[in-house]
């Protein structure tokens, strides 16, 4: 796998389904910071998983006016069920068709496995990546790196 897109790179635009009948494009969020959280799959078998954690930390993200987007290769119906079950208050994007295309664009797709790394990107209000991070396999990266990156954004 090639290296994850580093800080300083313009964030590649994409359009993905966020619900069965709605899509979201990254450039619609221009003007505010965006957190992209790539994760392998819905329904990870631990409680207090990465998305559940971010759900609790949302108020802190919002203090920076930042929008959080979760992305995995799961389909929209799967995301809908997962989101409802975990009471998620942020959108999950379906990187489903062609599978993993956006993960590939950000260079965080795990070819052999068919899903993405646990990878985080903070994108500034002008659409430039200011921080990116890949977590070791099986380690939930937490939210501390994201918060630090948001703090380091120019005001």
């Amino acid at each position, binding site marked *: 796998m090639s290296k994850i897109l580093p800080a300083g790179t313009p964030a590649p635009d994409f359009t993905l389904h966020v619900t069965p009948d709605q899509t979201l494009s990254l450039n619609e969020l221009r003007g505010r910071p965006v957190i992209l959280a790539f994760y392998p799959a819905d329904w990870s078998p*631990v*409680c*207090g*998983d*990465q998305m*559940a*954690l971010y*759900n*609790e*930390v949302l108020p*802190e993200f919002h203090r920076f006016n930042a929008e959080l987007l979760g992305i995995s290769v799961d389909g929209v119906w799967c995301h809908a069920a997962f989101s409802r079950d*975990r*009471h*998620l*208050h942020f959108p999950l994007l379906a990187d489903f068709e062609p599978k993993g295309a956006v993960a590939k664009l950000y260079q965080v797709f795990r070819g052999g496995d068919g899903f993405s790394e646990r990878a985080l990107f903070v994108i500034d209000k002008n659409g430039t990546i200011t921080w990116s991070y890949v977590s070791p396999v099986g*380690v*939930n*990266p*937490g*939210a*501390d790196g994201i*918060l630090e990156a948001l703090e380091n954004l120019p005001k």
Partner: protein
Amino acid sequence: MAKLKVPVGPADHTQGPADAPVTLVEYGDYECPHCGRAYLIVKALQKRFGNQLRFVFRNFPLREIHPAAEAAAETAEFAATHDKFWEMHDLIYENQQYLSYELLSDLAKQLKLDAKELARALETGEFAERVKKDFSGGVRGGVNGTPTFFINGQRHDADFELDTLGRAITEASR
């Protein structure tokens, strides 16, 4: 590797000597079944390491998936103001499968605490700020789920089985 952001201080609930060679900090959620299992493991570790180990518990309720976790955390903090934090902490974990407002009220009575006062404290969110402070400090330190352990300030990323944690504690005490 993530490091504990908020050092152990006087506001913390601790067991064991302050000068113990190893301090184990747990960020936990009273409704999380994994924390329920970790409760027993920590007890075993405390027995094994005795005065060599100081244990600290901090709140990390995942409220959206565990609707009673916040109330449980506030109840333990309420008990703490009557010097009964650990009694309440233990009772909640020991009765975890029955966790509810009724249970918390019953446990308060069992500890000879005023259940009405507890109800009022939960109603007004008297201890919400305290719980939130634990949570925010945890997030900043890289707490990534529950339970998350720190051994002498370093996040423990391996599993929390008795042998794994025991080895990590032995390692840290050297």
